[in-house]
């Protein structure tokens, strides 16, 4: 790999001068954007109101109210200070944390600007962000499982779509939990195909993923047009109800945002923790990662490369199937053609953005979910920003990350390479 990319940056460069300056300029640009786009267009006496109770909550929490302009100016000033310091001295290893802080400040400034002269339900926005992050994160976890073991999976989208459809049909016939299980198994089945193609037949993994994507889009639309359109009872599974965590759900503001969700949200958190622990703190995870980094070395040490990869890909497929079931059983309550609408690919982006780490992917999922949620709501709020540009943000951000501007990700070294056992 290294021979192919002479421009690949070493780790010294990762915290070196070029990156320091680029990040400084980024911070300053965000400060300037807050000043020019938001502060300059806000009248002096306008008041921002954030409602802190999500809809339907009985707890009474006071609204957050402030005069918009000075807050915007203060945020712009802080960002500019951080940018200046980064440019001159640099935050070193804490750069990423500061980047997160600046991004959060920028988002807060943006929301304050949107809500100036009117009110915005901040708690509702946060809750919606978490919900929108669920399928993206599950998709990313699917990608992490596969790619950490060295198998590229661009079929997350297709697996999710099939999972969504199968879950809807079985959910309608036999109940929600059977539907969920069927969705997971459908994802696993496609993953078996992907695994056989890319591990046994050593087909190019992108081609194999493309096959599964074309097949899933075609098959789900075919079945939908042939059966689901005519038989409503096959496509009416209902959705999982929200679970209130006793005690915690009553906490004002935080409770309804964090502790009142359906099974998909809590499962996602569980999978997140399990995968993180499994990958980095168990022998299972060490073996899985070694197969993705250096399969030959792993083989020499007696790890069964093929078996490990099969297991990882199938688990990844189950994760994608679970994420697909979210669409029908956790969100919409029926299957629509091509309803995943590229969420699988955003999950792939979140995986890269999160540097192939579960929690990084979750962070990216939150960010992308936020953009997704805002784009859906801005039209309702009547804001002067075209929602299309917000929806573009995750893709552009991913390309920037991939280009190494904001720090280079570390893909597993043997990602995408079929393993050929010697002596065969």
């Amino acid at each position, binding site marked *: *790999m*290294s*021979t*192919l*990319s002479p*421009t*690949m940056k070493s780790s010294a460069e990762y915290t070196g001068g070029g990156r320091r300056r680029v990040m400084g300029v980024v911070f300053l640009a965000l400060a300037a954007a807050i000043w020019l786009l938001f502060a300059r267009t806000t009248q002096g006496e306008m008041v921002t109101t954030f409602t802190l109770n999500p809809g339907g909550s009985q707890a009474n929490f006071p609204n957050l109210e402030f005069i918009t302009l000075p807050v915007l100016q203060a945020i712009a000033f802080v960002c500019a200070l951080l940018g200046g310091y980064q440019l001159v001295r640099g935050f070193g290893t804490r750069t990423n944390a500061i980047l997160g802080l600046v991004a959060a400040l920028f988002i807060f400034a943006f929301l304050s600007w949107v809500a100036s002269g009117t009110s915005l339900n901040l708690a509702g926005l946060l809750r919606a962000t978490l919900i929108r992050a669920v399928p993206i994160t599950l998709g990313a976890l699917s990608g992490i499982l596969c*790619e950490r073991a060295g198998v*590229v999976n*661009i079929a997350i989208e297709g697996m999710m779509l099939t999972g969504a459809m199968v879950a809807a049909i079985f959910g309608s016939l036999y109940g929600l939990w059977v539907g969920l299980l069927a969705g997971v198994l459908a994802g696993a089945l496609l993953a078996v195909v992907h695994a056989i*193609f890319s591990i046994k*037949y*050593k*087909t*190019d*993994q*992108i*081609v*194999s993923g*493309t*096959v*599964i*994507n*074309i*097949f899933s*889009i*075609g*098959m789900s*639309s*075919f079945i939908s*047009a*042939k059966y689901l359109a005519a038989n409503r009872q096959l496509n009416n599974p209902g959705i999982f109800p929200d679970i209130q965590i006793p005690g915690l759900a009553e906490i004002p503001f935080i409770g309804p945002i964090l502790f009142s969700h359906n099974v998909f949200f809590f499962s996602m958190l569980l999978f997140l923790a399990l995968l993180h622990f499994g990958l980095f703190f168990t022998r299972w995870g060490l073996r899985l990662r070694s197969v993705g980094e250096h399969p030959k070395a792993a083989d020499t040490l007696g790890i069964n490369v093929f078996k490990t990869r099969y297991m990882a890909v199938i688990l990844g497929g189950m994760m994608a199937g679970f994420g697909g079931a979210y669409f029908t059983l956790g969100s919409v309550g029926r299957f629509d053609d091509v309803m995943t609408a*590229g969420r699988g*690919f955003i999950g*792939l*982006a979140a995986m*890269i953005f999160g540097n192939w780490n579960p929690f990084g992917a979750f962070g990216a999922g939150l960010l992308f979910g936020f953009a997704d949620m805002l784009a859906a709501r801005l039209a309702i709020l009547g804001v002067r920003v*075209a929602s*299309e*540009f917000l*929806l*573009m943000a995750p*893709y*552009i951000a*991913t*390309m920037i990350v*991939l*280009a*190494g501007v904001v720090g*280079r*990700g*570390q*893909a597993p*070294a*043997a*990602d*995408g*390479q*079929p393993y050929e056992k010697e002596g065969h």
Partner: protein
Amino acid sequence: MANQDSQSTPPKDKSAFGIFMHELARGSLIVPILAIITGLLLGGLIVAVTTDQVYTAWSRSPLEAIGVGINAALRSYSALFNGAIGNPERIADALASGEAAALRRAFNPFFESLIKSVPYIFAGLAVALGFRAGLFNIGAEGQLFMGAVASVYVGFAVKGLPAIIHLPLALGAGALGGAIWGFIPGWLKAKTGGHEVINTIMMNYIAFRLSEYLLRGPLQRPDTTNPISPFIETTAQLPRFFESPIRFHLGFFIALAAAYGVYWLLFKTRLGFELRTVGANPNAARYAGMNILVITVLAMSLSGALAGMAGANEVLGVNYTLAPAFSSGYGFDSIALALIGRSHPVGVVLAALLFGTLRNGALQMQIAANVPVDIISVMQALILAFIAAPAIIRTIYRLRAPQQQEDGLHVRGWGG
């Protein structure tokens, strides 16, 4: 064709078709053909098992059910044939009557299939060109959209030009729009190593969102609230050869010319040689002093330009306007076409004609036999699967393994 000589010596016949046959023979001609046949058979099987009458017949006797199933598949495929090529009886009647309008109606399905093939040819060539340079352009869809956006803009906004200038200008704008969308991931790949698969996927979605925005803003038709562009000027329309209802237009021949152009570029020019060398062995290319950066960027831009032409042709030859989601998944289909056509222009054209015909016929099949058009996507996926893993076809038909390693295509990891 597949004699021992053709595997080791360069082809004696240097024509486009000769090289194609040579390459086919090296990878064995039999696999793609069997893959297509198997795909069509499996498609028929899916049609059969999704026919309700089969199950009522099953309760009487399994044999009868099989008969009903085969019948259903045959009926569907004959509807597909009538929709794609034309109804033989109607053609015979029209020929007998000699009436011009009846003739046009009878032959319309055939020409419609050719029209459907045009974007496939362009997009398939785009992906194939990328493959030859070792680049996986998964973003033909986005490039196609940007090409369509650019050419529709030139088509309706520029007024008062004669067709001889306006039409090439609109086509050129389409190519340019696609080329820019290919240039960006190409440049990122060459300069930063960012993998083109991820970047082109991202560029796809950026293109969708951008075109949605444009169609609801600057490019929106003034008298409507729907996201649709104004109609292009007649001077920007690709000329049609027959009267209504036949929509067969000049774009088909432009597509064939583009295929020849790609062939000429790849196999007759120095740039093409360098491009293929970079694709086959980048290290060798670097030691030979080739500029990988320039070649990568150029290959992606050209690939994007071809995909952009696919969009331009749809807009300038068929629709005359641009609506959102006008592409029916050409991006993924084009990957299948390039692989089925072995990344060779002749193969791509043949594969594109096949799938253009199937897609066109499927519409008729949906109406006549109640088989959703999406069956074509399923068949396409199956055919691609068999071509991507020839071992499956070899196992099914008990073919011997090839003596020579087949040309594989492998990506080289993400991000670096």
